[in-house]
């Protein structure tokens, strides 16, 4: 057995140093401090990425390292191949081109959004191997355990020659990726929109970054969280009224996260009007883990909101956020810093409620956005919409939910996160939201997945809210009651029509199912007149002109 002195403990570091030497000879005199010319990006990637490397390509929910993604598709597959890609989001065509070009072969990811259909086709043809589809927190966590990147390709707003990065408000995943890579012998390459003498603030310290490439054009950012209030329906207003009166007020929900969609936008726009008329200001919705939804502007202006920590930013909201530092997390430079890892953790452990929409719900309350021809993965909902069973700190909402659960399942006192699924019984094209079996089962079989891709598990869901009412699953004694509670709000879907009328009436008597009139809500009051803003222009006005919506959302 070799003595400890002989054993080599820095193989990884040596490997990294050899890569850096290769890079410096490949780039030669053109390398200025850490700055690499854009036209040498491919050469740099070929020097520092070895066959079989784990490469984290920053593809976030919003911000994309798109220039580096394109450069990676142009490397010589004879030199760079068999890569194991790590990505939060597979958003760009280039992300999948890598597998057709023979550069990469395996991927671990969370969400595939616009590439979901192509991904399913490629999986079907055996062109790509999926390690696992993670929730965001799982993927970030594994960067620090057994999926640490050898090379990270990230995006930032600006950099100085020493590699200090300023991410701007869209910090998003960058800190988690860079920290895991830089401190475990990896190489970090950043594409930046501009090179500056001094960055406005240091989001990533320069000594964690190996190379900086000024990109020929700014990185792409998708405005994912803007919903035009003009498209909110009166059904959605009614559902929002029930959410506010039947859940937020009922439990005194102060710390929460909203999924994205018109349903939740309706709630946000009802806070300064309907919720205020119920004298709920200060009693609900004060602290948020949330992207800066433009629909929040009226509630913020009305003084409903004390703080919002953001996963990412939202195009057009930059100036508004900067002008509201009491609410948003902003740096000494005045602009926001977001952080997806921390905001996800906050949503998971510090929030008392998650509410969001989905495509399908089965009779056990499991929900999924998967369909057979699309592998879309998970957005933020699967972490946000899960009861953090390890939580200890108490809050009134959390305790009350726990109390309700113990009326049916006795146990030691502990709380419960409120997880609400808010759906209209029929979605677009008259597709029923309630089904006997989730399409996720068929997808799992087709794509050979170990488990069906369920977005939110039925046992994590506490309430299902439809236009027909609210089913409180905490108060259900067993699986049969649970099924009837769900059927009891499933409207005219096949599942809803299959309800046991007597049981549903009994559940309503017990307050397991509650309808609008049980909350004292008159359906005729559910009009769009209740919305604090009825158009994007109203939001701009509410912001005092600080919100500058992207062109596609304007009619001026």
């Amino acid at each position: 057995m070799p003595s400890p002195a002989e054993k080599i403990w820095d193989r990884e570091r040596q490997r990294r140093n050899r890569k850096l030497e290769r890079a410096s000879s490949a780039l030669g005199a053109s390398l200025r401090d850490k700055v690499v010319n854009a036209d040498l990006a491919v050469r740099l990637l070929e020097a520092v990425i070895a066959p079989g490397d784990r490469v984290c390509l920053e593809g976030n929910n919003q911000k994309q390292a798109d220039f580096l993604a394109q450069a990676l598709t142009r490397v010589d597959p004879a030199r760079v191949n068999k890569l194991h890609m790590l990505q939060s989001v597979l958003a760009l065509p280039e992300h999948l081109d890598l597998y057709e070009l023979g550069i990469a072969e395996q991927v671990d990811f969370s969400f595939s959004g616009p590439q979901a259909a192509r991904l399913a086709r490629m999986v079907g043809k055996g062109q790509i191997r999926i390690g696992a589809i993670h929730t965001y927190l799982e993927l970030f966590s594994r960067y620090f355990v057994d999926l640490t990147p050898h090379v990270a390709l990230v995006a930032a707003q600006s950099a100085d020659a020493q590699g200090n990065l300023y991410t701007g408000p869209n910090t998003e995943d960058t800190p988690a990726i860079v920290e895991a890579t830089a401190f475990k012998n990896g190489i970090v390459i950043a594409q930046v929109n501009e090179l500056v003498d001094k960055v406005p603030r240091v989001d990533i310290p320069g000594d964690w970054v190996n190379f900086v490439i000024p990109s020929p054009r700014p990185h792409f950012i998708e405005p994912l969280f803007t919903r035009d209030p003009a498209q909110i329906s009166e059904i959605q207003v009614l559902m929002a009224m029930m959410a506010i009166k039947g859940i937020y007020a009922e439990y005194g929900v102060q710390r929460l996260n909203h999924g994205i969609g018109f349903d939740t936008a309706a709630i946000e726009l009802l806070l300064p009007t309907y919720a205020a008329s119920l004298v709920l200001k200060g009693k609900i919705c004060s602290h948020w883990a949330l992207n800066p939804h433009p629909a929040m502007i009226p509630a913020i202006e009305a003084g409903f909101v004390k703080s919002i920590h953001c996963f990412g930013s939202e195009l057009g909201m930059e100036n508004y956020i900067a002008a509201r530092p009491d609410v948003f997390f902003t740096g000494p430079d005045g602009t926001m810093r977001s952080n997806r890892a921390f905001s996800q953790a906050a949503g998971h452990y510090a929030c008392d409620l998650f509410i969001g929409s989905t495509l399908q719900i089965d009779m056990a309350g499991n929900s999924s956005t998967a369909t057979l021809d699309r592998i879309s993965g998970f957005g933020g909902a699967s972490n946000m919409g899960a009861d953090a069973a390890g939580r200890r700190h108490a809050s009134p909402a959390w305790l009350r939910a726990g109390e309700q659960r113990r009326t049916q399942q006795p146990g030691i006192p502990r709380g419960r996160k409120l997880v609400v699924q808010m759906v209209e019984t029929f979605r677009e094209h008259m597709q029923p939201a309630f089904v006997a079996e989730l399409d996720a089962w068929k997808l799992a079989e087709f794509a050979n997945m170990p488990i069906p891709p369920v977005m939110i598990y039925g046992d994590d869901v506490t309430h299902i809210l439809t236009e027909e009412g609210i089913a409180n699953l905490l108060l259900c004694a067993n699986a049969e009651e649970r099924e009837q509670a769900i059927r009891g709000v499933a409207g005219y879907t096949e599942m809803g029509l299959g309800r046991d009328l007597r049981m549903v009436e009994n559940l309503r008597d017990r307050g397991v199912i509650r309808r609008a009139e049980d909350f004292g809500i008159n359906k005729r009051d559910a009009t769009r007149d209740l919305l604090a803003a009825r158009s994007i222009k109203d939001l701009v006005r509410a912001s005092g002109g600080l919100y500058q919506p992207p062109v596609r959302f304007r009619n001026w």
Partner: protein
Amino acid sequence: MSRSYYESNARARIAGLLDANSFHEWLPAEARVTSPHLATLEQPAAFDDGVVIGQGSIAGKNIFIAAQEGGFMGGAVGEVHGAKIVGVLERAVRDHPAAVLLLLETGGVRLQEANAGLIAVSEVMRAILSARAAGVPVVVVIGGQYGCFGGMGIAARCASAIIMSEEGRLGLSGPEVIETARGVEEYDARDRALVWRTVGGKHRYLIGECDAIVPDSMEAFQQAIMTCIENGDDWSLEALKQEHQLLNERVKRFGTCKDGRDIWRELGWADPISIAMMDNDEFVKAAQGHRTKNN
């Protein structure tokens, strides 16, 4: 809470504008006077054929009213629909109410009814002029989601006065029609900003095609309607000549302009881009001396 005109349907608009409980509907939905043409084509019908007509009052003044329902076939005018509007106007010639109010929201002729729809629209135009000739002012209100286009755009301009909100749109060919006929290079109907700069309420106000522009609330529309009725209708030859003079000048002055903004600049607006975000009151104030008509 102010009620939005834009967001309301035809019946809610009537309820919002007229004195409480003053409305008496003629040929209501229960009379089921529906389109024979749609039935032939097995298309869904509306029991009021997409227009609500009747009598009521505003501030005690006797008013005849017709309100098009954009929610039914985009407010398109069919034979029955048109005949109902004509009936209101002809009855006004006989009964002399204080005014006829036309709440227009329409894409124009209902294509399914072809010639019958076209004839209906031309009859509406003639009936508007008959009512005005009989001394009854006809006030058009445009502030709905579908705008006022096609033949009804012409009918609107036959009226004594037009009241719009900035959300309202008024034109002959609608944006999609122009794009289809002349190509996207000529007019990009998906460029919503361009659409509002060329047919939106503020632009129509600045080039003198609407007489009043109001914020999107029932109260504001109501106020403007009362003002229009009080101002009465100038039906003189002199007024007509003046209008023709304005139209001639308009072609000369703006004939080469490519965009609403070019016209606004020509009208003396130093910063035309700022117009879009101005509140209604601020806009009306700033527009003094910077529109083709005097206020």
